[in-house]
């Protein structure tokens, strides 16, 4: 695909007053395995070209997935036809102008060089290792290469290239079921032996299962568990939604809505994380503080609402929560008893205005007492308000890569609200 051809075509043939064009291209290879065999295995390229046009304040857009002349012609005509028929948009904004963008490195050579054969070998080795434990393993080995471009009539021009490699493994042996996953932009950081050893250790720790009733109890939240809460919590940290009274953060800017041990940033300074250089509105990514020592400093806000309320538009492009230096072993000694949570599952909003979420634990819950792990317990349901939960942080571990978009610490949190339990 020739991006120059697409740009030239749009600039020559689009007669709208204004336009923005987005092009994304990806090449993926995904090997899915379950119960020690491959069940799905797929590969191929994808592309998406989206043109958003405006006649005055009347907008329309069209997406196609082919870059030949017939499709580009269809895209331009359809977007223009839609815009001509659309009503005036009171919230219309001109397309972004030329902007200096940060230089980022989101693509890793080791990931680019990874072959399908290597990926199948990783799957085969994972299965072989599971068999030595008389267990089954299920998971996904995946490689994604993505390129994106964006240009506007008003002079914005940006591009980005990113890679991700992922390998997840869920081990099942009798009633024990647990998971370890690696997901990062760089395949070079992947170590199957290390990850499988961790998986085997988790499975071993979960062998002795005891029934445990729901209650408020201290928890050690590992980074993968915290990340899932952070995504939902930050979804509610939307400036417009808050200003309109729909979230718990209405009128709370510069207020201590969080615990003072908790800060939250988007950053370009963590090379292990992916940071897109710009967002869909053409806003350049930059160092952004959302929460500083518990005080809500900023919320993501789009260009139109920012103009209405007189603030700077900004967006979250990844999440970094600074950690501390407390180990899990030290955390277990800081409270009389508690649970270690690997991951959460099926989190949903219960009450948007309160910021309350529900969800289940998954992939193993460990009970500790007097500074040491005693046994595993059944999975539990929580109903919890994450921003309130941060007030109960007792200690933080070192921040670590949880996913390509999040560097987070392990947290020790007091009084986590479990409300129900399940049978396994």
């Amino acid at each position: 695909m020739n991006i120059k051809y697409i740009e030239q075509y749009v600039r020559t043939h689009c007669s709208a007053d204004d336009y923005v064009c987005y092009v994304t291209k990806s090449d993926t290879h995904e090997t899915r395995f379950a119960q020690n065999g491959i069940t799905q295995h797929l590969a191929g390229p994808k592309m998406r070209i989206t043109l958003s046009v405006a006649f005055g304040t009347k907008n329309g857009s069209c997406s196609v997935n082919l870059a030949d002349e017939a499709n580009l012609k269809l895209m331009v005509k359809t977007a223009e036809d839609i815009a001509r028929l659309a009503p005036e948009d009171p919230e219309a904004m001109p397309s972004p102008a030329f902007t200096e963008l940060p230089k980022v490195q989101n693509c890793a050579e080791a990931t680019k060089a990874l072959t399908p054969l290597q990926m199948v070998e990783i799957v085969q080795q994972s299965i072989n290792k599971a068999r030595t434990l008389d267990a089954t393993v299920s998971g996904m080995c995946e490689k994604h290469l993505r390129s994106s471009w964006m240009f506007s009539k008003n002079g914005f021009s940006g591009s980005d290239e990113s890679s991700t490699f992922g390998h997840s493994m869920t081990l099942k042996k009798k009633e024990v079921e647990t998971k370890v996953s690696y997901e990062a932009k760089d395949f070079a950081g992947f170590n199957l032996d290390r990850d499988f050893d961790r998986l085997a250790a988790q499975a071993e720790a979960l062998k002795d299962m005891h029934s445990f009733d729901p209650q408020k109890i201290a928890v050690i939240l590992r980074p993968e568990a915290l990340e899932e809460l952070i995504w939902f919590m930050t979804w509610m940290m939307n400036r417009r939604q808050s200003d309109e009274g729909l979230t718990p953060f209405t009128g709370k800017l510069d207020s201590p809505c969080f615990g003072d041990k908790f800060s939250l940033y988007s950053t370009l300074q963590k090379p292990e994380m992916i940071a897109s250089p710009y967002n869909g509105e053409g806003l350049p990514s930059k160092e952004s503080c959302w929460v500083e020592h518990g005080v809500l400093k900023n919320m993501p806000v789009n260009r139109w609402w920012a103009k209405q309320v007189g603030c700077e538009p900004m967006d979250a492009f990844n999440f970094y929560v600074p950690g501390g230096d407390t180990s899990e072993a030290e955390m277990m000694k800081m409270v009389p008893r508690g649970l270690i949570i690997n991951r959460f599952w099926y989190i949903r909003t219960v009450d948007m205005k309160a910021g309350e979420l529900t969800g289940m634990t998954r992939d193993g819950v460990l009970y500790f007492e007097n500074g040491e792990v005693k046994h595993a317990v059944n999975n539990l349901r929580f109903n919890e308000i994450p921003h309130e939960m941060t007030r109960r942080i007792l200690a933080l571990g070192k921040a670590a890569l949880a996913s390509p978009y999040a560097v987070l610490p392990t947290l020790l949190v007091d009084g986590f609200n479990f409300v129900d339990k399940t049978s396994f």
Partner: protein
Amino acid sequence: MKYLDLAMNAAASLGAEYADIRVQRTTDQVIFLRNLSLKSANTNIIDGYGIRVFKDGAWGFAHNNVFSDEAVLATVQKAYDIAKLSATVNKDKKLRLAPERSYIATYKTPVKIDPFDIPLSQKVELMMEVNRTMLAYEGIRQAVFYLIMHKDEKLFASTLGTRLDITYQFIDPMITATAVADGDSQSRTFDEGGRAVGWEWIESLDLDQIARQTAQEALIKVKADTLGPEERRSLILDPNHLGLTMHESVGHPTELDRVLGWEADYAGISFATPEKLKNYRYGSDIVNFVGDNTLTEGLATLGFDDDGVPGQKWHIIKDGILNEYGSTRDTAMEIGLDYSRGCNRATYYFDQPINRIPNLYLLPGTKPLTPAELIGDTEDGVYIQGRGSFSIDQHRVNFQFGGDFFWEIKNGKLFRPLKKVLYKSCNPEFWNSCDAICDERFWRPFGVVNCGKGQPSQTARMTHGSAPARFRNIRVGGSQ
């Protein structure tokens, strides 16, 4: 289309034991109106083909969007190579495909008025009027009208000799009013789910009345009481609520790929394991669930699935007993079935089809019973309408659901509106607590258009349905 034969001949000559090609053009139009601002009026066209090759007990799937002889042949070769690679791992874990015959058929969703033929201005003006009506109510802070129109045009060919020409469409309107008052905000949504019909459905709706009712009920809800501490109570669930409950607690647990552990790493597995077939009491004896990919206006009614297996109707739960699963050609053989129930579906051309929930519904009660009589027969309970928060564990046992609109029932009457109601239950407790279902006059469909599953993630659609039903002794209370 010449590429169908080209691809199948190439796959056969390479030595594929089975292969198919799905040439698919998907057209979506999504109109999103927030207050009076048109946030999206996007037409999205996704065009390409996916080729599956089955070789030595393993699948290979490759996709492309370049239509040329060279590209099609290269894609066949890629799918074949991937299958061979997979087979090196599956040496002692070979998949097998249930037998199937060939079909030459055409299926087209019965649509009277194609939504894509309606001018955008007409659609948007109608939507604007709805939002204007809702925003005219004092206290309504946000009005949202979301309209999805979808069309798949598929040509399918397989090495069995099957040739299918399928045109599938659905439409899904969703209207939400959000009220802000007394430091709280609450939304009320008109949401019947999607239906495989045309614009004639939208024309049949009294949108002015729907807008007024939605806004009025949002205002009632924001000022409503909360229920207080959790207690065991009766629940009466409306079809547009029960649709999601059955989706999560019956639909997903009876997908055979989950039962087999194929979703263990992501979407989860199922408690409803094969040794429970024909003997496990999933529900009370009035609970009958039917899988039905022939259902009129059903979102999973496409004539054939992406294995080339025709739509079927069968009991998944019969008289309360787990009867059968939703299956595909490759999952069926794993439990010794020599037929598939036709549940293999992909979302876009670039997706490898996976085992999905069929149209799945609860049969109505066989004795005459109206919703009014059901409420009148309930001393203390909660009546829930619409979808709310929903969450279930990865074995599909424990769940917690909210709803969209709630009434407390006292002494057989709707006593007061409520908000922030949650109920908690589990399988098999929940469906065994069902003691009354209204009759067929009150059976309503509820379409799900956004069922996420699989790695890579896919979004499937299916229709559920029920008449209002009562569940006894369920833990019901308010949120924090």
